[in-house]
């Protein structure tokens, strides 16, 4: 059970990410990602969309798997820049550590 937190998307703007909710969850990024790892990166994007901050912090390691190769950005049918969102989430996580 997850409680939605719509403010998280706004919070992410601080980390240079303003397209959190642009994604319409088509799954292209997950399928095209060279990592072929579960639902990555859409899973992380989805968590960001619904504001499941804890999930992101719990699963932060996944964020650093990303090669930042840009294939998902190139292919995204909505130009939602999934790869950049992952980078942004890395910044969010690091910020979280440093502030802790």
């Amino acid at each position: 059970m997850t409680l939605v937190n719509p403010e998280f998307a706004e919070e992410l703007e601080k980390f240079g990410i303003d397209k959190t909710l642009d994604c319409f969850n088509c799954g292209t990024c997950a399928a095209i990602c060279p990592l072929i790892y579960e639902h990555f990166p859409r899973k992380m994007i989805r968590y960001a969309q619904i504001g499941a901050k804890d999930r992101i912090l719990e699963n932060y390691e996944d964020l650093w798997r990303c090669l930042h190769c840009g294939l998902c950005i190139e292919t995204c049918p909505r130009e939602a820049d999934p790869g950049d969102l992952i980078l942004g989430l890395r910044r969010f996580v690091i910020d979280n550590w440093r502030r802790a």
Partner: protein
Amino acid sequence: MSNNTMKFDTVVVGGGIAGLQAALDLADQDFKVVIVEKDASIGGKMIRLAKVFPTLDCASCITTPKMSAAAHHDNITIFTYCELKALENAGSGITAEVRQKPRFVDETKCIGCRQCEYNCPVYVSDEEQGGFNARKAIYVPFSTAIPQLALMDVENCTLCGKCAKVCPTDAVDYFQEPKDFVIEAKTAIVSTGFELTPLENKQQYGEGNIPNVISALQMERLLAPHGPYNRVLRPSDGMEPDSIAYIQCAGSRDKSMGVPYCSRVCCMYAIKQAMLLSGALPLADIAIYYMDIRAFGKGYEQFYQNSIAMGIEFIKGKVATIDAGENGTVKLHYEAQGNGGGVNIAEHDLVVLSLGMVAGWNPEGVCPVSTGSDAFIETVKPKIAPTLTDMDGVFVAGVAAGPKDIVDTIVEAGAAAMEASKYMVAMARTSKAAA
């Protein structure tokens, strides 16, 4: 003004279902209409389809009566195989400059017997049949074409003279020249339709180079009674496919392809084809990969639910890439979003791309009518007068003003005819008042 000038009330640009319907609705009100068609036959895309949703009646059963009604109508003149050079309204009415391309066959003599085609020695890939079989270098476009006239494709002709020799009416004319003429009219209806989203727009879908990945329009031909194989076979080797997949939004709602809008018909035609396939190949597995199923029209949702009940599999997830597999199979990479899903690779015998629609005509340099960012003709009052363009006396019908299905196209064609006829009545009133 040359003697090549003809006068009509309305010039209809494009003889597909929208143009035909608009022309008929005007002609039935006693307006004189001329249809200018770019292809060698009227009928547009619809005549190329197998069956149509949601009634599943055959497309030609609906199109041919309209085609022949237009062809035989006293108030309708049809020019096929024409290029529109200019369409303008200088204030005094519409002027259309038209160039009729040479058929190299005298249309007053040709009787459509196809002797020339039977005897021509050059085989040419028949695009009317999705390229799955051949026509000849001289040919009648298709069996229900109107007019039933042959035309020659000079790029594939060896000038061997066989066609001229066998023609019973001496209709072959190797020396035919293009004919230029001018049409003057009070109004124009633009019904220029669509083309499919080019396959080249999506590298991940193979750009047309992966065997057994075909377009939905090609599948229409495989399903059609006059089809190239007369049945559904895999084009790479003639195998009857056991598993067929549809890839939705393969040319719509995809900014990476430059087509951000929804093409509106693909969900329904994929479902329709899937149902027809499950009739033609009862043992085959059919899957549709989709993002949202858009079954919005009258009877469409019920049609969709029926297809689920028939066992057609719907998989939520946009296919990311397509690769060639072993032995002619096709591999799809996608993220399955159902329960316990994940990144998957599925293998199918035949894959159909549900390609979207892009504008069929670019008016730039021909006609000053505005287009939207989607390249379709802009309408100025989409809510209460949906067929009005920003050009005086010019109206738009059907897909020319954005993707739509046949039902909506036919209704809108009627609306365009209404607007055009009102315009002409008002014009007559003003000129009477002035006089």
